[in-house]
C-alpha cells in the first residue's frame, strides 16, 4: 500500500491523493431468495472521499454498505477492501472488519457494558492494546464527540443522540480506514439529529473516508463529495452535491427529491 502523497489537505478533493481506491466494488449483484437487492453495482471509493447514498426504502443502499464489511454476502461481482477481496472462503474477515467502522441505525451499543467498556473492548480484545492505553484513547474520542462525562454510565441511561455518538466513538477506537453509516439519524428524536450530524461533520473534516446512507440532505450538501442515488437495486445517478440537488438528471431522482424536499 503506497502512502498518499502529502499534498492532500482536509478540504481539497482527497480522492486524487491516492491512485488506488480504498473500496472497489465491481459488478456486484445480490439476491434475497428470488428478490434481487443489488443489480450490477460498481463503485470506487478513494481515501478521504465522503459519499452519501440515498434512495427510497428498499432501494438496496443499506444492503450495499452491509456488503462492504460482509455483514451480508454478495453473490456476483467483486468487492475489494484495501487490496483484500471479500469472498465466502476468506480466512480472516475480522482483519478487514477491524479496519472498517460501522454505525447502525439502532446504535447497537452493548447494553451490559458501560460507555467506556463499549469503547475499550475492541482495542483490548482484538488488537491486544493495554487497558490504560485503551482508556486513554476512549476518553480522547469521547471528548471528540463531546460526551466524556458519560463514560461510566450504561447505554440505557443516555439519550438516543448520546448513544449514537458513543457508537461513532466506539467505531473510531479501532482507528478504521473507512467509516460506514447506516441511516445513523433515522431512529433519533428530531432534536437529537443535529448533535449526531455535527459529530459526523467533524469526522469528515478530519479527512475520514465515509460512506453514509442517510436522508439528511443538508448534511449531504455540506459534507459529501459525491451523492449517489439508488433505486430498485441500481445506482441511478452519481453526482456532486451541487449538481445532484440543482440539476438532477434522472426522472427517478427528480421524483425522489421532490418527495423528500417538499416540506
Amino acid at each position, binding site marked *: 500500500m503506497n502512502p498518499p502523497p502529502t499534498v492532500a489537505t482536509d478540504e481539497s478533493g482527497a480522492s486524487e491523493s491516492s491512485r488506488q481506491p480504498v473500496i472497489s466494488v465491481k459488478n456486484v449483484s445480490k439476491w434475497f431468495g428470488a428478490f434481487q437487492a443489488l443489480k450490477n453495482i460498481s463503485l470506487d471509493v478513494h481515501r478521504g472521499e465522503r459519499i452519501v447514498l440515498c434512495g427510497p426504502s428498499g432501494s438496496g443502499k443499506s444492503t450495499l454498505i452491509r456488503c462492504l464489511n460482509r*455483514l451480508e454476502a454478495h453473490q456476483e461481482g467483486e468487492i475489494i477492501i484495501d487490496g483484500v477481496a471479500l469472498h465466502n472462503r476468506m480466512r480472516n474477515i475480522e*482483519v478487514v*472488519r477491524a479496519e472498517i*467502522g460501522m454505525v447502525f441505525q439502532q446504535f447497537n451499543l*452493548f447494553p*451490559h457494558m458501560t460507555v467506556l467498556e463499549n469503547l475499550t473492548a*475492541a482495542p483490548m480484545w482484538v488488537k491486544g492494546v493495554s487497558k490504560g492505553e485503551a482508556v486513554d484513547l476512549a476518553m480522547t474520542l469521547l471528548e471528540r464527540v463531546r460526551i466524556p462525562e458519560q463514560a461510566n454510565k450504561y447505554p*440505557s441511561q443516555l439519550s438516543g443522540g448520546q448513544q449514537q455518538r458513543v457508537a461513532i466513538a466506539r467505531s473510531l477506537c479501532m482507528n478504521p480506514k473507512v467509516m460506514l453509516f447506516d441511516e445513523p439519524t433515522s431512529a433519533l428524536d428530531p432534536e437529537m439529529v443535529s448533535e449526531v450530524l455535527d459529530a459526523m461533520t467533524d469526522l469528515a473534516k478530519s479527512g475520514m473516508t465515509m460512506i453514509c446512507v442517510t436522508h439528511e440532505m443538508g448534511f449531504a450538501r455540506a459534507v459529501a463529495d459525491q451523492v449517489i442515488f439508488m433505486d430498485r437495486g441500481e445506482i441511478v445517478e452519481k453526482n456532486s452535491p451541487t449538481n445532484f440537488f440543482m440539476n438532477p438528471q434522472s426522472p427517478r431522482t427528480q421524483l425522489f427529491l421532490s418527495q423528500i424536499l417538499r416540506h
Partner: protein
Amino acid sequence: MHIDTVVGDRLVHKPKFLAALFAAAFALFFAINVSDTSLGISLASLIGNMVAGDAYGRGIIALILAAIFVADIAIIGFLPLRAQLIVVWLQLAVLFLAFFLVFHLSFPFILSKLRFMIVQGVVTTLYVSAIAISISFMLAIAGAIAKLSNNGFAIAIANFYTSLFRGLPLLMQVYLIYLGLPQLGYVVDAIPAGVAALSLCYGAYMTEIFRAGIESIPKGQWEASRALGFKFGLTMRRIILPQAIPVIVPPTGNQFIAMLKDSSLVSVIGVWEVMFLARTMGTKTFQHMEMLITAAMIYWILSMGLEAVQSRIEAYYRRRGAR
C-alpha cells in the same frame, strides 16, 4: 405484571364477600364431615362428645371451623402486604406440618437417624446434583450453539440428543446407563452412572432454555460485535451470553430444583443419597413414615436454599439492568 393504580375497598372486608365465604366454608366443612378426623375429635371434646357424632354436632363443628377461617382471613386483611405474606406463608406451613403430626411420628427415632441422613444422604445428594448441574450447564451451552449453527452434523447430533434425552423417562436413562453400558464392556459405578444420567437429561432440557435465551438477543448485537472485528467465540462469550444469562436464570433455576429432587431416582441403583436412606433406614423397625417424612422435609429445605440462590441472582441482574 402491571398493578392497577386505582385501589378499591379490600375484597376481604366486604360483608357480602365475608358472608359468602363463610357460607362456602361451612358447606364445605359440613360436606366433607371432619367429625372422625383428628381435628374433629379434638373439637368434639370442646363441644361435648355426646353431640359430636350426629348431624347436629357435625354442623356445630363445621360452624366453628368456618368462623375461625373467615375471622382469620378478615384479620389478615388488615395487615400490610409484607406481614400478610409472612403470616399466610406460616399458617400454610403450620397446617402442612400438622398433617405430619397426625402420623404420631417417633421423634427420638428421627433424631437418632438424622445425623447419618445428613452426613451421608444430604452430602451425597448435594454433590451428585452439583456435579450434574455443572456438566448439564456445559452440555446445554454446547447443545444450544450446535442447534443455532449452520453445521449439519452439529444440528443433527444436538437434535437427536435433546430428542432422546427429553423423550425417555429419567428413571429409564439411569437404568440404561448403569445396566446397559456394562453390556458394551464398560462397568460404571453407581455414582458416575447416576451423575451421567442426570447431566444428560437436564443438559437436554437446558439446551432448549439456552437456545431460546441466545435467540432472544437482538441480531444487531451480533452485527455490532462482528463489525468491530470480534470472532464468533469472543462474541458469544463476552457479548451474547452475558446478555442472555438474565433471561436464562429463572427457567434454569427451575431446572436445578427439579434436578435436585430427581437425583432421588439414582437411589434405584444403590447410591446412598437421601431417598435411598429414607427407604432403607426405617425398614428394620417398620418406621417407614418417619424416614420418608424426614426426607421430604430435607428436599424441601434444600429446594428453598436453591430458590434463595436463584432469587439473589435474579435480583443482581435486575439491579444491573436498572442502571
